[in-house]
């Protein structure tokens, strides 16, 4: 026989599968130095700078880490921005004319059109466990 608490638990699992979704990003990087800074967004508005990231992560590349794992996410559309802070100064460095000098990338390995990759190119559907490898260049 099912107990009442067991039924409640089952109902909760059925109604909120979201909490079980996982995004796992493997970063393909050049120099094994510094850290990768990555931010995960759940809306176009937030991705475009109009809101906070749902998760942020710092991956110790010099220490051998390559993978960012985001657990317990509600299902839906997400996009990720990341850059390789090669010199570990906490900033995405630019040349004197403002062009990035440290590698960066977006989910789907999307590339922009004279700017950051758009949400339209970078977003992906998350349900269950989703894995991507993103090359930072």
């Amino acid at each position: 026989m099912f107990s009442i608490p067991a039924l409640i638990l089952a109902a909760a699992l059925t109604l909120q599968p979201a909490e079980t979704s996982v995004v796992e990003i493997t970063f393909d990087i050049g120099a094994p130095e510094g850290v990768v800074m990555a931010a995960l967004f759940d809306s176009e508005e937030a991705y475009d700078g109009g809101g906070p990231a749902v998760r942020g992560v710092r991956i110790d590349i010099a220490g051998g880490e390559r993978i960012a794992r985001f657990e317990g996410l509600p299902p839906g559309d997400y996009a990720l921005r990341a850059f390789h802070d090669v010199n570990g100064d906490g900033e995405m460095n630019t040349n004197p004319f403002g062009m990035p000098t440290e590698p960066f990338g977006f989910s789907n390995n999307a590339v922009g059109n004279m700017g950051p990759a758009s949400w339209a190119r970078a977003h992906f559907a998350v349900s269950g466990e989703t894995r991507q490898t993103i090359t930072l260049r």
Partner: protein
Amino acid sequence: MTPSRRTFLTAAAALAITPDTAFAARAMRVASDWSLATADVEGDIAPRVLQRVHGRVPEGLSGALYRNGPAKFRRPGGSSQHWFDGDGLIRRFGIHDGQATLAARFADTPKRRQETRLDAMVMPGFGTAADPRAEIGSVDDVNPANTSVHKVGDALWALWEAGSPMAMDPDTLETRGFVTLRPDLKSMPFLAHPRIEPDGRIWNLGVNGNQAVVWRLAADGALEDARVIPLPRASYIHDFTATARHLVIVLQPWVHARNVMPVSTAYDWLPDQGTQVLVIDKDDLDARRVFEAPAFGFFHLGDAWEEGDGIIRFDVCTHADMDFAAHGAQDILNGVPLGAAPARLAMMTLSPDGQGRLEHAGAAAEFPRGDARRAGQRRRYSLHTLGEEPDRPLATAVGVTDWDQGRTHGYDFGAGHVVDEMVHVPKPGLSGEADAWLVGPTINLREGVTELHVLDMARVEDGPVCTWRADVAMPAAFHGNWVAT
């Protein structure tokens, strides 16, 4: 039959030549004349031996002429809209032991890879708008590496002007990758017209609106210094020049007015502002002076020099305006005549009173060059192309202007050739400025092939002393350099 008024009118109508139909007919004739100059090359050109068809190989002439220019403009899914936006094809004309060889390879750029995958030209450029499909993460993603080529250290650098040099192997022409001179200077622009001192030191600019980076490199390509300087105005800068002591930056009144692509639509022609010339001390980039000159447009300058009393001189090929850049070079690609006056050779004199004065030599000329051994020092001659006409904005002749005598000598290959820029190659063991060969290719339009010519600079009007012929045609190239071996 007595022609009635009606039949007369009908016949007249049938024969009527309106300006439009005349223009179209002329466009077709001209296009068929020189369309090889902007034709597509479908792939790399494997090394081959050229056939000598005229004259004798000059004794002591040994080396390679490297040249660069766009050679792929059109793909089924979309095409470049401007001559300056095709993929760079790096040519190597070798002359050794009396034999000439030719090979050519495209710079293997991210642009070319992406456009090959899409089978469409999608990247924005000087006169081509970006296609929405283009994936552009950095300026070097649009870099066609198509404007010039220099030997720097153990590499060839295929140069554009808004992005990084592209390193290639001097022997195999295999692409090595973009050059980053220092990590914090990645993706900084590097013009296609560095100025090389006689000892090999390299000066160059990279331009971004009203600021420029001044590059100083050792002869082997090692970075010695890079500093950003302000410019008095955001002129379009394709080329600059230098004396032994000064950088000379000509600021034409084609001025950046808006942040749009393609590049050619971002500039306004403002002749009322005249042309300015910024002169900067190589040893102190903060020591500067601005000279005022009449308005002119230009792409290309010769090396500058200083005379007594603070006078600076340099040769320049002036345009009345920059309509060629904005429109004419689009028309060339589409086989339509320009109908505008070609550039004219002039000498610019900057005087201590702060004025710059132009003296035109009279010749319609482009691609000015001189004796590289005299870069930054007084010289007597300018080497250049000749023979461009409004209907045919490609040269038929090569010329040497003698500034002492005020005369231009030339050799006209005729309308059956498109003449590329030629280079000054000193004769071994001789130091005179005219003790040199002129080496450069033409497209022989009648034969449909590329030719390589050697002329004696002192007797340029006699024509080639030696000509080789290839079994392929390559389109017109922009710039290149000779590497003696």
